């Protein structure tokens, strides 16, 4: 093409370079990721109920999991919504100390949640290799524990970033998105708890 040409121009130089919330492409990717993981949870839960239809008693020969630990972990996850929301709120301001406190609190709650999860697994009253029921229960809780750990690591990494001067621009958006993902972890936690503890007792 010739070096000089007359063309009308759509000038976008004035546009921002960081967006928070839905406008951010990472937000979209995060949403898609949650769709993938959500499908996995849905399928494991579906298998759980499918196997239930194939068995005369449910749980077969095992005591249902100890309710106490289920409730505890559920409660902890609900509490964790507070620091998650806080971090999300303060992210756009770019106020590093607030962000640090938010993330720190979130990471702390995650640690507690993981400890409780350990007791939860110990009190399922079944081993994964006993029967199909036990396998599904362990699969469901294991799948969620995997997400819990991932989210914990992600939070810690972002926390570390927040102590550097790189905590600005898109990194702030990442903080907000990290909280979105934590909401997902909480929701799936409540659901799996309901399936594992609730349905064996009330359904």
């Amino acid at each position, binding site marked *: 093409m010739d070096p000089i040409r007359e063309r009308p121009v759509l000038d976008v130089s004035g546009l921002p370079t960081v967006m928070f919330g839905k406008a951010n492409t990472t937000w979209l990717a995060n949403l898609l990721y949650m769709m993938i993981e959500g499908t996995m949870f849905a399928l494991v839960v579906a*298998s759980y109920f499918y196997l239930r239809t194939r068995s005369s008693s449910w749980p077969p020969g095992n005591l249902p999991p100890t309710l106490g630990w289920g409730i505890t972990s559920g409660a902890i996850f609900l509490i964790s919504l507070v620091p998650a929301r806080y971090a999300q709120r303060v992210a756009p301001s770019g106020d590093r100390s607030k962000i640090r406190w938010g993330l720190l609190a979130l990471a702390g709650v995650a640690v507690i949640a993981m400890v409780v999860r350990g007791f939860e697994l110990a009190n399922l009253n079944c081993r994964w290799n006993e029967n199909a029921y036990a396998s599904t229960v362990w699969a469901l809780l294991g799948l969620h524990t995997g997400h819990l750990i991932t989210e914990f690591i992600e939070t810690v*990494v972002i926390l570390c970033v927040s102590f550097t001067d790189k905590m600005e621009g898109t990194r702030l958006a990442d903080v907000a998105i990290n909280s979105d993902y934590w909401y997902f972890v909480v929701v799936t936690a409540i659901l799996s708890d309901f399936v594992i503890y609730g349905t064996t007792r009330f359904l």
Partner: protein
Amino acid sequence: MAISEPVVVPQSGAADRLARTWAQPRGFWGWFQNVHHTAIGVRFMVTSFIFFLLGGVLAAMMRWQLVRPEHNAIGPDLYNQLFTVHGSTMIFLFAVPMMFQGFGVYVVPHMCGTRNIAFPRLNAFSYYIYVVGALLLWVGLFLKTGADAGWFAYVPLSGPEFTPGKRSDFWAQMITFTEVSALGVAICITTTILRYRAPGMTLNRMPILLWEKLVTSIMVIFAMPSVMVVSSMLLMDRTINTQFFNPSVGGDVLLYQHLFWFFGHPEVYIIFLPATAIVSTVVAVFARRHIFGYVPIVTSVVATGFLGFSVWVHHMFATGLPQMSASFFTAASLMIVIPTAVQFYCWMATIWHGRLQLKLPMLWIFGFFFVFLIGGLSGVMLASVPLDWQVHDTFFVVAHFHYVLIGGALFPMFGGMYFWIPKITGRMMNDRLGKIHFWLFFVGFNLTFFTMHFLGLHGMPRRVYTYTPEMRWGALNLLATIGVVFMTAGILVFIANFFQSKATGRFAGPNPWGAGSLEWATPSPPPHYNFLELPTVNGREALWEAEPNQPIVGGVREDIPEVLVTNTLDSEPEYRDELPGPSIWPFLTAIAVSIAFIWSIFSPWGIAYGAIPVVITLIGWLWPRGHSPSPRVPEPALEARWIR
């Protein structure tokens, strides 16, 4: 956004600046750092094509074993590995990576008129993880550890008791690798299509190919988790003795089939929709008119996406389901014919009311019309429960899905290759060789697979490594084997043609076919910055409907890899996003993940210990570095260019 009056746009320097900004490292290690979608897309195509050839070799070996009754060239143990690895290769290592990942990653950003795919590093990661999965399966085969329970590996045969050793475990992990890859690419493509489209390319103006890639990506996102879950269950049953599929303690063998086919049938459309997209694109170009029935076609693509999830049980009619559910799935399976029929009629109408230039790509599309239709119609037969009881798991079904997959995906794929290779390499393919390739392949294909219908009707089950003369299947099997010779010859001609054109082919120029979508607005092969001037779009076929002085996008920084992000519905510019540059970390992460997965085959602790390097590499990948966000005021060089 306000569009300025026509202004002088000095090109001087812009090209060099962009070239410098978007340059990809060279050399051995550079190869592992490249994150540009053209490079990754081509790699997906080349790699998957190599596995297509390997899978073809296995098929030839199988045909050789079946050439006559009680032929014992190949024993049952090896034969079972052959057809299992053949099936798995063609589906997981060729069809999806080629049709979805390969074409998608290469062509989507061009069609959107942007400079790279979204999340380029995730994209690169997806490629490496796919390669590892592919190697896992094939190295397994060479170490006598080839999967041998069929490409859908039904339990209990594939389970801990009946497949000792590590064969099924290799298969299951291969699944995990390839599906992770597909899912990663799905995220990249979806985001690119929804947010990176050039200003003016509203949803209503999106090329059909983009629509279809969007639908396919969404299907991947909902279908692939299913097979990952089920292959993980199988792996856990085999390695840590879970009991998902053990009937004597409440496990269930049909659970496996449900989960597998809930993925397995959408998979067919994940392979087939990209093919129809190629058809729609090519037909419009060589009928020299806009595609007829844009809205009906898009609607049917979306409808296929939904219906694809409601037909999986028709793979399980012979398990003796209750009549009710069987009827439902028959109805659904027949219903899914309608969207495909709609597309067929629209293509016919496009040709009918256009001016047909039967150039090479179009020739293959005509081959697709004739061949795929047979597969589609025998599919109608299979949808009927009583007929399925008879022909299920026979060579009739083998014929059916080869007509669907080769007819429905391979013919359009070759069409697409003859169509886009000039864009990729910058040189035209040889027309005469292309025609020879077509006719050899067309004849050989029908010779091999049409005969299989009869074999099936006369009671030859699939997956038998031999048969007795009393069955009188010899003659037809011999015919089928002869067909392989023609197909092989055809493929060889294609390869020869490719290298010849790469070396001495006629230069293609930006738009050799006079096509209308944006990828033809850049030089062939495209530079790493894709577009010197980011385009704006004015209609469904951007280049055909561009005004004489179609506005261009200005003000996207050229000193850092920056792209314009627009909103989903009407692609209004929203913000400028800086993309990550070349990096070795995706490759290292892929290696770390591979170690963890492969280790887990041999010890459950593999996941635990293997997770550590994964975390480290991920941190290395995600740790922020490089430029700080751009200042609001562009630097003087740009200032000078956009005078108001």
